[in-house]
């Protein structure tokens, strides 16, 4: 009743980083509850994955060799059966696109509360404290709940587990009701290809919602020309069709690590920051001094971009 069950994430034959981070998060909780940390590895080359996941702090790894790719029905059925077998106190899942495709279903099926996108976790064995953000990262909140729960964790918030463990690795004998699998993955497609690869650029001039209108994009283009830099953007600009998908920086776009990243009118939602926080130098131009982008910027200008950008362009003409 005090164990932790953590679900690992993989895609197209590769374990995703959050799978190692969830070991750290799960181990921290299990240390407080005095229980074991169980990992579940579902679908794909599970034996190979299990070997890689056997890091310090893992007590048991349960493999389910069923299908190659993610199917939320298989995950939901497997995790509910593992829960019945192991009776863990907490079920942890990644707050990934796939995690959000099964974790709420698992919680509902098991009649457990769910808290998503956790950036911090603590427990005294009875009460679980979860830190999460609201209003797009403008505030953090502390929430509490009693008893068993399902929690999804944000990627890159916990360090990856290291070392070699001595977990027991066992195939879990799951019974999948195939008639209940109502969705089928028919393929994958890489999007955002094309003539420009923003991840290769030394300087990115990156534009966000603050540009207000498509008609204002040319002032960014003029700056990029003057600097011989590449234009990238945050999600809303691509959603609006003002720039093509291959310009999008962030979780669902590209991860970039230029020498200089100039964020223009970008608030810095977590999904965007995930794609550019590895940049050497980050400059943020934004009228809102409280915008989350300021937390990771090295330099900031709090003036109106419509004043700053033309002045900057002029410096190089």
């Amino acid at each position: 009743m005090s164990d932790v069950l953590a679900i690992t994430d993989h895609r197209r034959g590769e374990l995703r980083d959050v799978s190692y981070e969830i070991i750290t998060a799960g181990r921290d909780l299990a240390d407080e509850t005095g229980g074991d940390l169980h990992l579940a590895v579902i679908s794909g080359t599970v034996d190979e994955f299990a070997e890689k996941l056997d890091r310090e702090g893992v007590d048991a790894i349960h493999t389910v060799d069923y299908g190659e790719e993610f199917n939320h029905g298989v995950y939901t059925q497997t995790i509910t059966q593992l829960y019945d077998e192991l009776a863990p106190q907490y079920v942890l899942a990644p707050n990934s696109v796939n995690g959000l495709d099964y974790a709420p279903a698992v919680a509902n099926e098991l009649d457990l509360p769910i808290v998503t996108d956790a950036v911090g976790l603590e427990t005294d064995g009875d009460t679980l404290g979860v830190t999460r953000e609201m209003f797009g990262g403008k505030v953090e909140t502390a929430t509490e709940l009693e008893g068993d729960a399902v929690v999804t964790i944000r990627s890159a918030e916990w360090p990856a587990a290291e070392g070699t463990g001595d977990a027991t690795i066992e195939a879990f004998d799951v019974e999948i009701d195939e008639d209940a699998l109502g969705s089928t993955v028919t393929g994958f497609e890489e999007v955002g290809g094309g003539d420009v690869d923003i991840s290769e650029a030394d300087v990115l001039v990156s534009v966000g919602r603050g540009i207000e209108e498509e008609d204002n994009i040319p002032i960014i283009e003029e700056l990029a020309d003057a600097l011989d830099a590449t234009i990238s953007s945050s999600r809303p600009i691509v959603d609006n069709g003002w720039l093509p998908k291959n310009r999008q920086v962030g979780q669902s776009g590209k991860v970039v690590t230029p020498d200089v990243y100039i964020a223009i009118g970008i608030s810095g939602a977590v999904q965007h920051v995930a794609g550019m926080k590895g940049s050497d130098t980050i400059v943020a131009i934004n009228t809102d001094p409280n915008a989350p982008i300021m937390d990771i910027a090295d330099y900031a200008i709090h003036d109106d971009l419509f004043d700053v950008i033309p002045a900057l362009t002029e410096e190089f003409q």
Partner: protein
Amino acid sequence: MMKILVTVKEVATVEDEFEIEGTSIADQYLGSDLNEWDDYAVEEAVQLQEAGLADEVVTVTIGPEDCEQTIRQALAKGADRAIRVWDDALEDVDVLDVGAKTDILGAVVEAEDPDLVLTGVQSGDDSWGATGVALAEDLGFEWAAVVNHLEHDLEDGVASVRRELEGGVEELTDVGLPAVLTIQTGINEPRYASLRGIRQAQRKPLDVQGLDDLGVDAAAVEGAVTLTDMYEPESESDVTVWEGGAEDAAGQLAELLREKGVAP
């Protein structure tokens, strides 16, 4: 012909500068808006109707009378009628968690019996991102989370969708109906309501229901999650702010770029 139900939330918005009182943002810094993701969900439903694939689009909102303006926005964009759920029992609920929302919305779906339910991926204020999938599981519907494309044919009771995974990869999935799809921004271009649409919206039915009407137990909506603190996150960087006006700041940035050897 299909019937589509769209969940529509009025979200709280916060000004750039704000203050926290207890576990919430002080009222004077709060505004309200139609949840961005739901705007795309409404548009998708209306487009399906315009394509002749659906004959009715119904919205459902959990919220007090104040949010009827937001509901009328969805009606003005083309939804046919709206349901608003509110109850005295909901007034005092601190955190309306995923389980509570699932119970309420599940009762509405059962009463309305739609073929397709569209929700936003998440809400812009509390960002649970979980209600659509929990709702589907509760109803025995199929589902797909984070959908950024839906084929407008829906033949043989199957919805062909694309799910937007991380890192520029999309998953192509066939989903059996009835289903709940959680809709990602960018799936379409949400329209602005026309003046005619706004006028028509005033006359469209907006039905208000309480928990009793839906057969939902008041105890079920209290939820399991309590909010104990709210604070501004600590800044992790020691950012250098260039002051002295736009031109001076631009000059400083130009100097930095030259120092780094990345500008002409």
